[in-house]
């Protein structure tokens, strides 16, 4: 019934790892060909693969893991998806119903453990409920503010010798769950009036634009108004990265011009963003002169950390569409003179510090150069996944994402080990696309066993390991705040990555000089059917800048090791 329900839901791939409590389900998988199972090497990777599929397509990914350790290994992946509002259905095996609560072999209370990191979870109590629960799980995961849903299935609920009537419901209705489908027209009207009167506006958008499929509407509205656009880490690609109106990412490692513009703005239009601490810096100093319009599908995100002047609860796509119509139909035009002065100011900021880094203070390659080369070699068109740390910030700053759903990273939870399985999940579903995993020598070792899965399923992703021989972001903080006491932030005895990937049956490339980088990278991407691991030696002393000064306002930033605003 489980497999049949997944098939009826239109699921093509599920990612998982078998175990005792799931043997009935795995036997059913064996006897059909519609739902293909991908065997990972660690359950965390299964959840990240499912998660990345969801990030790239907008549809819920599915993971299947056994009870006990299988389920607990999946928790990190579930939490990763939860924090970034990614739709996912995770099916966990459970011990037989009569053993629950008796500390049986491989028993854990998965409902209890997963509760704080899921949108909802189900326990199957009667086999005949399976089709409805599966449909509800997908409905909940994909609608409203998306999120992961766990279905915990005791082994005796899947006994193959017992037969039950099966009908897969097309729709499910739940009296306690009715996601909102449009915004309040009065509020949208008020907001549009403010937009048309703004003198120093900024459009600040997040992952909600990507998840809500609202990139086209955002781009159209921004162009109509000629307003600058900044994206959060999760929102990159929501607006074309090479567009003149794009002023870069904002926040802790945001661009100088984006953070300055936010601080001096008189109006902020926030769309599908949640004013998180990595964006706002100190909330009491946040954007002191700005009125705030906040569009979000989740009412709890509005006025949670920063008070909104005009809250609009609704799906980004529908609300923005309504705004576009209002702007088009309005007699009033945006204030061209004020905007031209505002753009002049922004361009001046952009001139002063826009995305520059020094290449002359060391012989070594700069990590920024590697990302810029990746952007060049792939024409800004690849799917880029990342792990967590300095390389993630460099990728976010220097890769120019022109399309949504192409930048795939663990933004909220910051999960090291995410990058490789995420790249695999994308490649499996987009076999013809270039998929690059930007990682570091620290992060990659958190799920390196998946190189084996890549071999089994022929997943020729390109891994760019920015090897700085240290946990770069930790080291940076230690440099800046702990007088360079590098406590546990470097690893001695790193493996020979080239030999390691070759042992897994893949291609390894070592790059030490910038002069060799372009050639090597082009060669790697030309090897269409091979996984290539590029071990790229970069300057271990490089820091990510700008970096906001702790407890300051948006405009308080370090711009280099010596310069401060």
């Amino acid at each position: 019934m489980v497999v049949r329900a997944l098939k009826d839901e239109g699921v093509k791939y599920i990612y998982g790892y078998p175990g005792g409590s799931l043997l009935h389900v795995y036997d059913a998988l064996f006897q059909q060909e519609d739902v293909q199972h991908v065997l990972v090497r660690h359950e965390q990777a299964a959840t990240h693969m499912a998660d990345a599929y969801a990030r790239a397509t907008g549809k819920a990914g599915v993971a299947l893991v056994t009870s006990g350790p299988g389920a607990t290994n999946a928790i990190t992946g579930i939490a990763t998806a939860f924090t970034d509002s990614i739709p996912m259905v995770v099916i966990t095996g459970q011990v037989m119903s009569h053993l629950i609560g008796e500390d049986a072999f491989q028993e854990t209370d998965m409902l209890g453990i997963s509760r704080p990191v899921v949108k909802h979870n189900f326990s199957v109590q009667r086999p005949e409920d399976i089709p409805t629960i599966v449909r509800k799980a997908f409905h909940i995961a994909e609608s409203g503010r998306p999120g992961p849903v766990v279905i915990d299935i005791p082994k005796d609920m899947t006994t193959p010798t017992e037969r039950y009537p099966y009908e897969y419901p097309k729709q499910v209705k739940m009296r306690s769950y009715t996601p909102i489908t449009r915004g309040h027209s009065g509020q949208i009207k008020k907001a549009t009036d403010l937009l048309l009167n703004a003198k120093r506006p900024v459009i600040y958008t997040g992952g909600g634009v990507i998840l809500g499929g609202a990139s086209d509407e955002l781009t159209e509205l921004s162009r109509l108004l000629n307003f600058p656009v900044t994206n959060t880490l999760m929102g990159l690609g929501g607006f074309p990265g090479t567009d003149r109106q794009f002023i870069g990412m904002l926040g802790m490692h945001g661009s100088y011009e984006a953070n300055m513009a936010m601080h001096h703005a008189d109006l902020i239009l926030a769309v599908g963003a949640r004013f998180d601490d990595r964006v706002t810096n100190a909330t009491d100093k946040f954007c002191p002169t700005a009125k705030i319009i906040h569009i979000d599908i989740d009412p709890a995100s509005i006025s949670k950390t920063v008070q909104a002047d005009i809250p609009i609860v609704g799906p980004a796509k529908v609300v923005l569409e309504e705004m576009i119509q209002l702007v088009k139909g309005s007699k009033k035009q945006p204030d061209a003179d004020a905007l031209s002065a505002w753009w002049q100011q922004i361009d001046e900021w952009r001139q002063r510090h826009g995305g520059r880094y020094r290449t002359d203070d060391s012989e070594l390659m700069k990590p920024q150069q590697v990302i810029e080369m990746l952007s060049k070699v792939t024409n800004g068109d690849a799917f880029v996944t990342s792990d967590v740390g300095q390389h993630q910030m460099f990728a976010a700053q220097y890769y120019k994402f022109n399309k949504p759903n192409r930048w795939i990273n663990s933004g909220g939870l910051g999960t090291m080990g995410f990058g490789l399985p995420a790249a695999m999940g994308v490649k499996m579903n987009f076999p013809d696309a270039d998929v690059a995993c930007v990682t570091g020598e620290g992060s990659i070792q958190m799920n390196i066993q998946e190189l084996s899965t890549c071999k089994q399923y022929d997943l020729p992703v390109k891994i760019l390991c920015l090897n700085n021989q240290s946990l770069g972001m930790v080291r940076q903080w230690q440099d800046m705040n702990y007088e360079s006491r590098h406590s546990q932030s470097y690893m001695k005895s790193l493996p020979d990555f080239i030999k390691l990937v070759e042992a897994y049956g893949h291609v390894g490339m070592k790059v030490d000089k910038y002069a060799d980088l372009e050639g090597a990278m082009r060669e790697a991407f030309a090897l269409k059917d091979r996984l290539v691991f590029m071990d790229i030696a970069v300057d271990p002393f490089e820091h990510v800048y700008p970096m906001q000064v702790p407890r300051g306002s948006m405009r308080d930033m370090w711009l280099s090791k010596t310069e401060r605003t």
Partner: protein
Amino acid sequence: MRHIISVLMENEPGALSRVVGLFSQRNFNIESLTVAPTEDATLSRLTVTTIGNDRVVEQITKQLNKLIDVVKVVDLSEGEHIEREVMMIKLKASGQMRAEIKRTCDIFRGQIIDVTPTTYTVQLVGASDKLDAFINALGSASIMEVVRSGVCGIARGEKVLSL
């Protein structure tokens, strides 16, 4: 400020733990909590009292509303409402104290629901501050055990919390 939040939710296993878990997860405080099925056996009614400023309480109601099992949420403190709590209190009662306790009990309109030669068990119904006042009036020396139900509340007038 103290708020009384009423929640109508699906009467399903695990629903209560979602509510309680939410409070600890988000660092909200719970003063008291009561829960029982309603006249419709598929629904439970939960009442929680909490202390927080308007922003915190707004977050609490929004976050509660997000829980899939929660059907409706209302902050009763926003309007006219009635609150009640039941307390049973076991007291040492011998000698002169027996009459004294009985008098205090009458003043507060409590009922003595169990008697032994040396103890009284008193039942008292009222708003929480009335129960507090009763305890204060007794003085702690004679109290052996206190059990309180937690607050339940209902809006005044025609306002109802239902489907």
